[in-house]
């Protein structure tokens, strides 16, 4: 293979996909894990496809199918931006194989190209199940058009470039700003949170403040939406509605920003890596630092320190918690009565109060540091497993941060939701209990899944915190549960939550009993 960057990319992809490991592993457990991972990815892709089909059918039924490709591009680009921000610099810098690749006779630009190509491909893989089914629906309803296909294809291929470059550049900038501070990790986390919250608040603000003129048709409304969600997608929309140069401008901007990003990155790659990985050993020891505590406080304290040691891990692990708090704050300022008043409907708000816990489930599942905590032990896991600890102690410690963050955030959201939707006493009790029980179950289930499907050989912690099978199972499992609970809760009241609560308690107890009977961790 002449192109060394392609060779580097191939090696990285082999690591991400785990197929090589399954192919050459001598034990059937590894093969089963890979098949399981593939099945989960397929299910996730299927869920995205179904969602895209439903959304696209809605567009076509409203007669605004022409705007659909631009809307799909806007949605996937926004998600790429948010996910890349969450991933931070760890996708490019501070990789475990940095020393190895930097001693190879390969240009820095080739190393960067291979890394960026992997990030690009993973983002593109996410975009495809959104765009392909949507485009098929569009052609099935509105008829096939070669021009629309060409524009959609070009826009899809180019769409990850701009948000990816902007998000990684912002993360790198944060790293550079904080590099010289003593508490740079904490600062990076705070600034990343501010940046992340900024994007989220701006997105919420846009959604809430967008003014739709009276008499505006659906086509115009969706144009406004596309513009507000992701401005460059308007260029794609322009081409689809008759202005040819739009797609060329979209391509030009995407490629130019990505190229500029690579050029700047080549100049400062080593410096940024050093800033990210340099450890300060300047803190002096004080006798007061010697403290005693219980086994659990030692283990849980270590889990929290691990969580706060990397801004990428923290943001990925707590994105749902953050969203819950943001949603609670947004609800304080947003009066649901206005929504019904605008629609000219007169409905009792308390009917919708039972949707609160369902909404909370959606976010709680997104935040599950416990689902990756065991995998993140990586090679140092033997240091944990040789300690005189029971498996239950280890698992409870790994579970604790997830519950400690999710339960209070869920309660805050539930309280605001219940107040805003004028819940009755029964609804208050059901919502609060359901959110707390589900937080506990979700945390335990995450740790259990991580125990069953660990991934210890990662090259960057985000691979595990964001993309591993236990994390995806928790995210999409809660997503499906939440989507089911919201309408069923509105229709049937507390019964669905009673079922979820009972299931949460039974499964949580089963997991705890299971770990009580396990003797020791496997290093495999």
């Amino acid at each position, binding site marked *: 293979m002449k192109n060394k960057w392609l060779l580097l990319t191939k090696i990285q992809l082999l690591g991400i996909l785990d197929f090589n490991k399954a192919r050459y592993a001598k034990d059937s457990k590894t093969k089963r894990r890979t098949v399981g991972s593939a099945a989960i990815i397929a299910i996730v892709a299927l869920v995205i496809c179904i969602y895209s089909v439903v959304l696209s059918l809605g567009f076509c039924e409203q007669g605004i199918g022409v705007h659909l490709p631009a809307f799909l591009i806007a949605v996937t680009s926004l998600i790429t931006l948010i996910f890349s921000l969450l991933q931070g610099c760890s996708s490019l810098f501070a990789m475990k194989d940095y020393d190895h690749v*930097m001693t190879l006779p390969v240009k820095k630009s080739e190393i960067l190209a291979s890394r960026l190509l992997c990030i690009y491909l993973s983002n593109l893989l996410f975009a495809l199940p959104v765009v392909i089914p949507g485009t098929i629906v569009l052609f099935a309803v509105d008829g096939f058009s070669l021009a629309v296909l060409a524009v959609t294809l070009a826009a899809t291929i180019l769409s990850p470039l701009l948000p990816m470059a902007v998000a990684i550049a912002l993360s790198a900038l944060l790293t550079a700003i904080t*590099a010289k501070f003593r508490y740079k990790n904490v600062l990076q986390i705070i600034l990343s949170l501010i940046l992340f919250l900024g994007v989220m608040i701006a997105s919420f603000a846009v959604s809430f403040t967008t003014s739709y003129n009276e008499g505006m048709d659906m086509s115009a409304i969706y144009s406004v939406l596309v513009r507000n969600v992701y401005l460059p997608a308007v260029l794609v929309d322009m081409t689809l509605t008759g202005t040819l140069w739009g797609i060329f401008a979209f391509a030009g901007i995407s490629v130019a920003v990505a190229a500029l990003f690579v050029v700047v990155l080549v100049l400062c790659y080593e410096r940024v890596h050093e800033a990210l990985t340099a450890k300060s050993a300047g803190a002096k020891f004080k006798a007061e630092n010697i403290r005693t505590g219980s086994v659990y406080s030692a283990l849980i304290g270590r889990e929290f320190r691990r969580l706060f040691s990397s801004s990428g891990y923290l943001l990925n692990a707590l994105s749902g918690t953050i969203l819950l708090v943001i949603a609670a704050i947004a609800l304080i300022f947003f009066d649901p009565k206005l929504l019904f008043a605008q629609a000219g409907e007169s409905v009792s708000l308390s009917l919708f109060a039972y949707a609160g816990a369902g909404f909370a489930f959606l976010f709680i599942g997104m935040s599950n540091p416990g689902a990756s905590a065991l995998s993140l032990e990586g090679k140092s896991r033997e240091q944990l497993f040789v300690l005189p600890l029971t498996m239950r102690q280890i698992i409870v410690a790994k579970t604790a941060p997830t519950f400690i963050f999710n339960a209070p955030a869920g309660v805050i959201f539930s309280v605001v939701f219940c107040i805003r939707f004028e819940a009755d006493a029964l609804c208050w009790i059901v919502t609060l209990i359901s959110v707390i029980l589900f937080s506990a179950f979700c945390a335990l289930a995450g740790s259990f899944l991580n125990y069953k499907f660990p991934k210890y050989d990662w090259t960057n912690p985000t691979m595990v915190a964001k993309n591993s099978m236990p994390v995806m199972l928790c995210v999409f499992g809660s997503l499906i549960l939440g989507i089911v609970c919201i309408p069923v809760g509105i229709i049937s009241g507390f019964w669905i939550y009673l079922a979820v609560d009972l299931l949460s308690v039974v499964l949580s107890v089963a997991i705890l009993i299971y770990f009580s009977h396990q003797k020791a961790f496997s290093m495999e």
Partner: protein
Amino acid sequence: MKTILQITHLSKTYAGGKKAVDDLSLSVCEGDIYGFIGQNGAGKTTTLRAVTGILPFESGEITINGMSIKEQPVACKSVLAYIPDNPDLYEYLTGIQYLNYIGDIFCVSQALRRERIEKYADMFRIKGDLGSLIGSYSHGMKQKLAIIAALLHTPKLMVLDEPFVGLDPEAAFKLKQVFREMCDEGSAIFFSTHVLDVAEKLCNKIAIIKSGKLVADGDIDKVRGDESLENVFMEVLESHEK
């Protein structure tokens, strides 16, 4: 003797202000087995990582085979091999996949690749395991695989960080043999070690580093005089503490 590695006034300060290497200069010539010794945190690994182009440095110059690591990093790295103290290899690859990957990167021909892999895999008794995943290897086996990968392209300069840690006695013996063969053929070895006995018996030159500064260097006989290297090392450290 042609100089293979020339370090001139190298200084490296980490973020946070810690000066890890301070105005360090030394040269490694063809045929040299150069030992680099010092306490923990003295700056050995920082120096080795700067030499290999992993770590940028603020002042000084490093040339390999007459080329600057800053100006011509790819050309330098193509004649260099580095083995870190704890090789972090791709655990999801098999041993042979890893060697093929390194062979491809260094453009080693099929015939040479086969010859060298067979020779060194036999020598280090790892041939039967090359089809297994690296994740299933012991620390010593990973070390052996990293050594074979480093030898695939017959480097002019081999830089090693604590190369004998984790190797069984036979492999350590064979590695020393390989070092000598390479040096006879015009290559050079620059390695850090805490095992003074190894440095004393194997190296023709040594350098002692303390708190980032070179405190002694040159031919081993000159540095050691009539004493053991261990005594000299302790004396040098103590004299620089006063």
